[in-house]
């Protein structure tokens, strides 16, 4: 039985008004504008919409999106499932380090991954002779680089907890190892693999920065096509129509992912045991193969990136890093790269503060599961189902006029607000489980000892939420620092963030510009990785020691 004393519905909604107003202004209204712009053109205009949807460019983008997402998913699963076996089912020395290194790519900003693969496959890159620059294969490899970590985490977790008894039973019934795996182990893992694949497909289908940079002018997905329609053809209508298409696409992928997750939840009610086993001499070969594949996939692009950032016209040196402090040619970038980095840090600070501040309010309101908390929860999660590019486009379409007397047009504040919209769902998902783990009777105990509702929050809830709050703050900061999809629409050309500056530099000819892009990408990667490392130390399980 839950205490009903707390929060009259009116005061609950009064507190909820703040996050709802934020999302309304910076997310729902812009999203609605995109939808309206796509459906209408001085009156409902379905013909114009159909014309855009059936154009060869659109068809091309849809086919490319599907191809890339499918290939990226298959690649991630093909490498990720055996790797999950070696890294999670088996136990061996040094495994923890390899696990940690294998998920590094996932926390890197997209623009860093794109830079790294450009460094590897570009004309002067280490593997430039393969001709993979601006090719589908190159993009797929980058997507796999990114998403193997997802498969590892999801499938690895399931495999480590899988009961080995049924497989052993199959062996005693005469199945050879291959058949035992195919008929017993694999079906048991199928829900986890399906769930991971659905998430990876979603990530691949909404991947923007990687495709934009690595695809060049020839390869376009729906996401990059939206951007090109705005940035090059100035056709906002076409961009809006394509956004509707992408929303449908993502909606279907999300529905499939939710369906797969429900199946996984149901199957995980089976016995969960410690199914890991010590690796034997016989496993050494398999582990070695996995290690080599992972090392090539993960380290080759990163090594190439660092090497290229240090490569000068005559050997190696830190020239490109020094150049980050100088003023590049006016046509290249209007400000020095260090200024873009400072701008990024400032925007990320504001974005993280806004996202975690609102996230803390939302988590406090979601502590008790009620009808209204379910509504708030789903509204706050909505940005997850909308790609960053559409968030950016919506803000560009909407906030180009004054709102309530405040002129937001071209305002610096749009960048951190867009980043806060992107970070908010993750912040909430980080805080809510911890908030819900605080037992309601513990708050009642504080009340019976004379604590007012505000004191209960300050003296019981907040001390228990402080560490997850630190984790969420770090996540939000790292996401904002590397955010590219939405930022690229709302950042003013004369005030680039670090990711948009890197994108600009990558597109300019000349070894100096590209070298600076690589050096800046290394700096951005180090900034993001160190924030993630510090915040991971905040990870804790509240309530587990009660």
């Amino acid at each position, binding site marked *: *039985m839950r*205490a*009903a*004393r707390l929060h009259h519905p009116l005061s609950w909604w009064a507190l909820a008004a703040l996050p709802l107003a934020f999302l309304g202004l910076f997310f729902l209204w812009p999203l609605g504008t995109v939808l309206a712009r796509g459906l209408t053109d001085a009156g409902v205009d379905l013909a114009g919409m159909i014309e855009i949807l059936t154009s060869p460019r659109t068809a091309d983008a849809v086919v490319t999106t599907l191809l890339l997402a499918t290939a990226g998913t298959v690649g991630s699963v093909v490498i990720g499932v055996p790797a999950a076996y070696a890294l999670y089912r088996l136990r061996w020395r040094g495994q923890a380090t390899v696990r940690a290194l294998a998920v590094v790519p996932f926390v890197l900003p997209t623009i860093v991954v794109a830079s790294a693969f450009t460094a590897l496959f570009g004309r002067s890159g280490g593997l430039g002779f393969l001709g993979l620059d601006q090719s589908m294969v190159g993009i797929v490899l980058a997507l796999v680089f990114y998403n193997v970590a997802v498969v590892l985490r999801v499938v690895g977790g399931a495999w480590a907890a899988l009961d080995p008894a049924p497989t052993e039973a199959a062996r005693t019934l005469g199945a050879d190892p291959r058949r035992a795996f195919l008929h017993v182990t694999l079906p048991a893992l199928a829900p986890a693999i399906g769930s991971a694949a659905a998430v990876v497909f979603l990530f691949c289908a909404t991947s923007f920065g990687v495709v934009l940079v690595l695809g060049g002018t020839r390869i376009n997905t729906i996401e990059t096509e939206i951007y090109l329609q705005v940035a090059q053809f100035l056709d906002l209508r076409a961009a809006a129509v394509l956004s509707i298409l992408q929303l449908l696409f993502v909606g279907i992928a999300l529905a499939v992912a939710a369906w797969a997750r429900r199946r996984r939840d149901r199957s995980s009610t089976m016995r969960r045991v410690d199914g890991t086993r010590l690796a034997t001499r016989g496993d050494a070969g398999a582990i070695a193969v996995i290690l080599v594949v992972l090392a090539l996939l993960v380290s080759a692009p990163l090594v190439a990136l660092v090497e290229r950032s240090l490569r000068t016209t005559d050997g190696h040196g830190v020239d490109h890093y020094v150049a980050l402090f100088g003023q590049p040619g006016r046509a290249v970038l209007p400000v020095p790269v260090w200024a873009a980095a400072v701008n990024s840090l400032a925007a990320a600070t504001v974005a993280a503060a806004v996202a975690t501040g609102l996230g803390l309010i939302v988590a406090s309101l979601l502590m008790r599961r009620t009808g209204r908390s379910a509504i708030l929860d789903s509204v706050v999660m909505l940005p997850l189902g909308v790609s960053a590019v559409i968030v950016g486009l919506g803000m560009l379409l909407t906030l180009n006029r004054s709102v309530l007397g405040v002129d937001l047009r071209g305002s610096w504040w749009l960048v951190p607000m867009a980043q806060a919209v992107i970070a908010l769902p993750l912040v909430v998902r980080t805080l809510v489980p911890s908030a819900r783990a605080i*037992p309601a*009777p*513990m708050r*009642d*105990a*504080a*009340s*019976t*000892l*004379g*604590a*007012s*509702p505000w*004191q209960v929050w300050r*003296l*019981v809830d907040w*001390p*228990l939420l402080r560490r997850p709050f630190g984790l969420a703050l770090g996540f939000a900061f790292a996401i904002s620092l590397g955010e590219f999809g939405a930022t690229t629409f709302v950042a003013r050309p004369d005030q680039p963030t670090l990711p948009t500056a890197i994108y600009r530099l990558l597109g300019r000819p000349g070894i100096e510009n590209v070298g600076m892009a690589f050096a800046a990408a290394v700096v951005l990667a180090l900034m993001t990785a160190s924030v993630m490392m510090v915040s991971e130390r905040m990870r804790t399980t509240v*309530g587990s*020691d*009660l």
Partner: protein
Amino acid sequence: MSGLSVADATVQYPGSPPVLAVDGVDLTVREGEIVGLLGPSGCGKSSFLSAIVGTVPLTRGRVVWDGVDLTRTPVHRRGFGMVFQDGQLFPHRSVAGNIAFGLEMAKVPRAERSARVAELLEVVGLDGYGDRAVTELSGGQRQRVALARSLAPRPRLLALDEPLSALDAELRARLAREVRDILVAAGTTALVVTHDPAEAASMAHRVIRMRDGRLL
């Protein structure tokens, strides 16, 4: 009249169909009296207790102390303490920090506070445990801390909701007598909810029974 008087207490939880947990109960407890409330699980005794303390709202009825109607007074201003079934100690505070919580809320000066904490640690037999983390304690020790914590601000009524049910049988019998002695020594008015007749008999001056939301 002095003491607690509850009239027509009714608790109904929303739902379809709504659940009537407490159905028009009347009860008076004299000052200094320890009353045992006995009944099978699900009979509404915990809901009744929570409604008196104020953590669950009354659908109908009144809660009165010394002639003052407290029905609309929020929990933290009623001056009623509560010992929860599984202690509900604050994991981020030490043993002493837990016991001092209510004193801090009452803005008791620091010196007086630590004297009171030391006194209560002695009363519950945990002398010298003040700096321990509550996570290091055994189940019996936790319930002693929970009792000390709720006694510290000298509540005018102490509600105990199955305070010993999480403990093993032997410890339970011993602690039941101890708790009674502590309550009697402090002159605390108390209402103890339990499903164990022996426990009720050993702790309370008077035992009343409850079934299906009504007193028998």
